[in-house]
């Protein structure tokens, strides 16, 4: 619901006679266009000859192929809560949950497939994940010969974590206590002090 006070009316610009006549403005526009057309030096800077050259990325926020993070024990950090697949606007994440084989957790993904061809790399899954298990890596040159090949399964996504963890370490320290232990085992990993704030 948009409230009255949130609506800002922007006045249409008042046009001068030359604006109304179009042509002077068209000519002014052409000046800009032509300036760019003849500025040879600039051009070389802005275009990167991919794949021979690769652009430097800001690793922290680049949204490339996904990875599934591992906790310090090397287990998949995902708890199969389906938040990512719910948040996903492209419906490209397919999860099947199951009972985990580990005593400190109850749910884990038996299957975790991402259709990288359907994905729009919006990063919503990363935002939605309550345990920072899914992250987008700076890895962007992604090719495959078939559609099937581009559906990344859990093993592949975990492998991507192994490959990329040096470039982009896990954003937050792993938190394994989501109240999942049910109080039977007091010795569970706690969120670090910084995170608690």
């Amino acid at each position, binding site marked *: 619901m948009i409230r009255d006070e949130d609506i800002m009316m922007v006045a249409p610009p008042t046009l001068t006679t030359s604006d109304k006549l179009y042509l002077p403005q068209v000519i002014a526009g052409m000046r800009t266009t032509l300036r760019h057309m003849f500025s040879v030096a600039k051009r070389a800077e802005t275009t990167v000859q991919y794949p021979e050259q690769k652009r430097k990325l800001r690793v922290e926020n680049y949204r490339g192929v996904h990875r599934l993070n591992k906790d310090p024990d090397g287990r998949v950090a995902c708890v199969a809560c389906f938040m990512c697949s719910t948040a996903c606007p492209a419906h490209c994440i397919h999860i099947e949950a199951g*009972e*985990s084989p*580990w005593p*400190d957790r*109850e749910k884990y993904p038996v299957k975790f497939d991402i259709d990288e061809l359907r994905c729009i790399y919006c990063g919503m899954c990363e935002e939605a994940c309550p345990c920072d298990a899914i992250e987008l890596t700076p890895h962007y040159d992604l090719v495959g010969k078939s559609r099937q090949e581009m559906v990344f399964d859990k093993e592949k996504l975990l492998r991507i974590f192994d490959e990329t963890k040096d470039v982009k370490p896990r954003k937050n320290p792993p938190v394994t206590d989501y109240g*999942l232990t049910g109080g*039977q085992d007091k010795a569970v990993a706690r969120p670090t002090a910084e995170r608690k704030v």
Partner: protein
Amino acid sequence: MSWQAIDRKSAPADEGPGLSDAVKEKIRAFFPRYETKRAVMLPALHVAQEAIGYISVRAMKDIAELLELPPSAVMDVVTFYTHYWTHPRGEKVLMVCRSLSCQLMGADKLQHAIETKLGIKDHETTPDGKFSFMTEECLAACDHAPCLMVNERMHKRVTPEQLDKLLADADSDKLPMPRSDLYDAPHGEKPARGH
């Protein structure tokens, strides 16, 4: 399920002692006094606790059978009242009041002294089976705080220093009247009230 939920489906390996026929008879004797059998629950539990020292799983089942209730209904009552013990207690149960007056007068120090001396915590029993310890909501003797009860006998204004003597005293739980007088007798005659 490797993340393990407590298994409540199977009966525990040791269900503890059951009620003897004599005890059951004693419970049945209460039936005519109440409109429903369910109402016999509290006396029945007291009888059972008196007979076997605590209320075992087996005993709860027996009582449930007698009162024609699901056993869980008996467990409900047993766990609600702190004076029913679901595991064996020692010969003497030390109860320290944890209500405000006693706490202000040093019941916490008393509790700490008992716990360190006997090496047990709330609702636990010493290995030799002599003492159990529990905290109690109110012993109804605030004017004599801090209070300590040993079985059914009340000790008033107990200090941690007196504790050694108290523990050594074999008669510390001795009542000034017969124990049976404390409860309503089955057949309606008025019992003599203590204290």
